């Protein structure tokens, strides 16, 4: 199979069928047993998330495993991990749009939704992590009772604004793409409530060619803005560490390294999500092996870049001749966290090498497993960035290890559950694929066949 046909399987020959396919989870009256089971489990984890947060806010962040030397811990790692996943969604969607990749059609909606959810979750952690969370809005430049302003030299301020702008931007970008599809749902809705609900959400969209033109121009412009924004956001997250003078943090390579890392984990998470769509909602006709093939290639590329980054770190540590840097790198490899470190290397660099083989890329279960491992690896990378440097910096007398607590792990698991919960709601409320782009694809595919 070549050409556009790659992106469409049997069952999406006509626009009406592709529409029906995407609308099915929203309007079809059939048993959703699997979905109910899934969302119940997800909900329980969401409750866990809430409980751990309440615990930390009421009793104190002493509940977490942090100590005087390793003052940062899970919340920071979780934050960086989630924001990484979050960055990927919009990045993927925007880049593929600009480069006119047709296969974007059926995955960009979930990718962007993933962004929104991941970024919202990520945004919680820096606040939970604070000693006095109720004062987090002192990061805003408002004339407060103390007559002081944010300290603009702090990477945390850049962070705060990067996340905020990025979240709002992504909402706009996502919703703009959503409007025409909501119109379709409105017209397909069975109930009066449905019609009112989706009708009001789609602002009375009526497929007017004039509107299409404005819509597309705006949408492409947003895509153009999204790419630099996303890169800046995760570069800034990288600067949280790079703008310090700790060994293992003060590295110029961090910003690009973080961006690639974000794309990496993002593609991995997208693979997981669309695999779920394909399996759970029968999106097979519009999400084909070829999609996984493409994502596999992306992940392969990212893992190579990441591997290169690790090599660069080791090289610079050796080449700089800086005692602390060398000591740090050796500690990284053979020290207290060596097992986690090598597991991370395997997950991020070794396992993805399997994607060199097309058979692996197009084997959905296998690439799913690898994608999950990649996300594990990326989380390990983030926690190790925090742990290793802080545990083993300049003052040997203060060296110590991080002792994680149950609350730490419960909070991480809870955030995953919350993410799953949000995504499961999303697929039942909003078209999980961009219907109008799929229609365009189907149409062009017809033309191709005629020719």
């Amino acid at each position, binding site marked *: 199979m070549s050409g556009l046909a790659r992106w469409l399987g049997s069952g999406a020959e006509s626009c009406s069928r592709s529409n029906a396919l995407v609308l099915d989870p929203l309007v079809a009256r059939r048993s959703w047993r699997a979905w109910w089971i899934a969302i119940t489990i997800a909900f329980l984890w969401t409750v866990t998330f809430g409980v751990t947060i309440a615990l930390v806010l009421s009793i104190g962040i002493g509940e977490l495993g942090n100590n005087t030397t390793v003052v940062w811990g899970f919340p920071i790692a979780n934050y960086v991990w989630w924001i990484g996943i979050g960055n990927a969604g919009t990045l993927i969607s925007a880049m593929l749009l600009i480069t006119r990749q047709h296969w974007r059609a059926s995955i960009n909606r979930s990718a962007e939704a993933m962004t929104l959810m991941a970024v919202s979750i990520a945004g919680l952690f820096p606040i939970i992590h604070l000693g006095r969370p109720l004062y987090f809005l*002192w990061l805003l430049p408002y004339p407060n009772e103390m007559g002081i302003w*944010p300290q603009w030299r702090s990477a945390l*301020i850049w962070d705060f604004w990067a996340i905020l702008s990025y979240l709002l931007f992504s909402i706009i970008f996502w919703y703009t793409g959503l409007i025409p599809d909501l119109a379709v749902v409105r017209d397909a809705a069975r109930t009066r409530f449905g019609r009112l609900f989706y009708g009001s959400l789609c602002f009375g969209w009526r497929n007017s060619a004039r509107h299409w033109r404005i819509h597309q121009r705006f949408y492409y412009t947003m895509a153009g803005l999204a790419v630099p924004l996303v890169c800046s956001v995760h570069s800034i997250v990288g600067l949280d560490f790079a703008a310090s003078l700790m060994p293992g943090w003060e590295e110029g390579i961090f910003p690009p390294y973080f961006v690639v890392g974000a794309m990496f984990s993002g593609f991995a998470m997208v693979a997981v999500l669309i695999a779920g769509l394909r399996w759970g909602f029968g999106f097979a006709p519009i999400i084909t092996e070829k999609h996984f093939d493409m994502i596999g290639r992306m992940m392969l590329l990212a893992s190579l870049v990441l591997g290169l980054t690790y090599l660069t770190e080791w090289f610079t540590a050796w080449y700089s001749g800086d005692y602390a840097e060398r000591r740090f790198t050796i500690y990284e490899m053979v020290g207290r966290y060596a097992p986690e470190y090598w597991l991370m290397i395997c997950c991020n660099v070794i396992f993805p090498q399997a994607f060199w083989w097309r058979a692996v890329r197009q084997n959905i279960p296998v690439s799913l497993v690898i994608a999950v491992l990649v996300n594990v690896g990326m989380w390990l990378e983030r926690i190790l960035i925090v742990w290793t440097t802080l545990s083993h910096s300049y003052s040997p007398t203060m060296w110590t290890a991080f002792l994680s607590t149950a609350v730490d792990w419960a909070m991480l698991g809870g955030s995953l559950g919350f993410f799953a919960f949000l995504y499961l709601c999303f697929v039942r409320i909003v078209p999980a694929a961009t219907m109008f782009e799929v229609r365009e694809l189907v149409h062009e595919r017809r033309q191709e066949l005629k020719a």
Partner: protein
Amino acid sequence: MPSLSRRDALHLLASSVAATMASCTQPTNEIIPYVNMPERLIPGEPLKFATSVALAGYGRGTIGITYEGRPTKLEGNPLHPASLGGSDVFMEADILDLYDPARSRAPRGPSMVNSWDEFLQAFEAARAHAVGNGGFRLRVLSGRITSPTFVRLWQALARGFPAARWHRYEPVDDDSETQGLKLAFSRPMLARPRISDANVVLCLGADPLGPGPEQPALARAFSTRRNSEKPGGMLRLYACESAWTLTGANADHRLVLAPAAICDFALAVAARLGADDGSSPSLAFKKEVEAVSDDLLAHRGHAMVLAGRTQPPELHALAAWMNARLGAPIDYIEPVDTVPGTHAGSLAALEHDLESGAVDALVIIGANPAYDRGVEFSHMIGRARLSAHMGLYADETARACRWHLPMSHILESWSDIRGPDGTASIVQPLIMPLYDSRTPEALLALVTGNRSPRDYDLVRQTWNRGGNGDFESWWRGAVERGVIEGTGAKPVTVSAPSLPQVKPAGPGRLVVTTGPDPSIWDGRYANNAWLQECPKPFTMEVWGNAIEVSPEDAKEFGIADSKYARLTCGLAVVDAPVRIRSGQAKGVVAVTLGYGRVAAGPIGDGVGFNAWPLWARRNEPVSLSPIDSGPATHTTFGHAVLDEADDKLFPRFTLAELAKLRRPITRPESSEPTLLHTPQPDDGYAWAMVIDNGLCIGCNACVVSCMAENNVPVVGPDEIDRHRDMHWLRVDTYQSGEAAGLRIGFEPVPCMHCEDAPCEPVCPVEASIHDTEGLNVQVYNRCIGTRFCESNCPYKVRRFNWFDYAGYQAYADMNAGTISAQRNPDVTVRARGVMEKCTYCVQRITRARRGAEREKRMIRDGEVVTACQAACPTGAISFGNRDDKHSHVVAQKSRGQHFALLASLGTRPRTTYLAHVSNPNPVWDKTS
């Protein structure tokens, strides 16, 4: 009646001299506004009063800082010979004992709640019953009491009750020394080394720099001779010891010897000094012996040999003989302690009387034999018809006694006390007794018929025996100075000591050496949370003690570090965690005393293991075997093995190397190049600190002093295990070299107050910023707890309140009302979720500035003294204005061994260091 007597005391104090006016407060449960402001009392301005606190019965002059009549801090009294301005952990922590909520508050007797009157009735009954059958056999058992007033009252009592006896014992005694000197001079003596006059000191298991009543004075003397610039050269210190002591760590040459080997070594040295007793020096140390004895002889008149507390009397006698040969700068004085005989003997006599039922009434004052002499003693107590215990706490002995009487804390008392050199000083109260307690003197007066004794009068009567002219002015001077001139014991001329016959102890495979704990002494400080959480030198252990063995023994007996082992001395058995200590003599098992209390209070109960049974049987066969592990030990940060490549953290120099040094290792930060504009202080002050690693003996006084001054909370063992200790100041302990030549150095690390501080630009809310005088300040109410500052601090000196350590989440009873009464009102008590750190005692700077501005002048050099600086007995810490070219701190910074910690990072710290300088014997290195 008790309330009445308190009112009496109120009247007494109100009508007493103005010097004491501000030191009395209303009872804590009343609040009475000032109608007329008491003289000299400015709200918010602390007042200072000279008084004394005791350790092992010896007085150590102290200056109490009080706010509105509330003492908050103790500092050394420069006029007092046992302090000379310095302090130690115990003096610093005494203030917490005063406010300890676990202190006993009322007399306790057969019926749980009793009064002093009921006790007196019981006492009278016992007396009356006894008088019938020939004499009232009253026995008073106490620790060392040097109070002239107590002695006077005792003599009065003894006149009334001829059959009464006063038994005295200190758990940590000096019997061995006194016996040894008696052996040498055939009369009881106390030796007082004048270390400041010595050029060469040989310590045979002696620990002059270690914890003890004389630590501040001896350390001060030592420091005066360790200045690499002073003419007259540096003192050279040799230490032969079995286990690590502070003296050994600070010695220029340290020899690790088992106790028996120390005797051999001493004999060998003595032989070369002319004691031809034929015993040939053990070949192992021939060269060292020659090097040491030649060095001693080369400095006749300025060389001395000191024998340790745990060494046999013969060795002390031998040391005395050697000192005589060397014309050592040592004074001999009559014992300050008026009770004759040894501690052990005195106690044994009492035990004999108790056994034979020859005791009508037993009154135990301040001592706790039921703990440190074991349950056997508490059974004996039952043999006395009347048994009473007077103490700060209802402790183990109180439980064994029929009566418990609350004793006033020395800071609540009018009394007097003698220092180790006999110097007497008046003890004046800094605060009214918090509870219905009495002083020992008052108790003696009570039982001798004075129904409402005023300890104030009792003390004055002691001293007002004519001879000293206008008594009032004399008294006032004495109280204000905190020292009574001319009461120090005069050195006596001694006959030439006889050379004793030293029979080296038969070397058993294992020997147990016990010593007072560096944190809680003999156990009397067990309920003091500051001391429990004060990291022990070398091991950084807190909240407990351990069996310390050498690596060789550990291997031989199959014992792993921090695993448990069973140690037995004859019948005494303890199961305890093991700590492997390289640099400890093979065959020596070292334990510290004072732990394993069962009735110490919420802080001290069940912490560590009780080593007193081992002490009692220390001469019986010892065995050691591994057992199943129990709970882990607790250690704080601060210990690191230094690898060669990283020696910048703790550079070492010998005098010779220092002479070769062209320019400072690090130039003063003001002259270092930088791209960043450095702030110019707009009021002419640029505060800076220099810490002399060469002078730091690692005693921790600064650590505890900082806790007292800055309201640093205690976190407790569990939080310690999670590496969350809150000490603003830590004494880093760097270990370098191999087993034999193993060296340990101490380096106090407060905040560096970097000029280009990494912690500041990363703070998003301006909680961590720089002030115009170069202080790196932490604004607590701005802090939201991102902890970016600490994660970006290369020195890791910031501390975070993970919980409300100072408030409702405090450890044990550390948030009790009385505890908060100790807090320094000039220092914020930090809330949960806030970062904190060393402030250079900014409150003291501000106070000095207020004074200076009132007088329209600049703050003088040395006017601001930080808490750690004030505590340091060796003056290792200097603080001042770096912009004042004539300030001491500038002079220090321009010295050759001056260096900045991690200078390569370009943080330009204001706190800098003087590298450790030693004065090794050039011959030595050739020998070994």
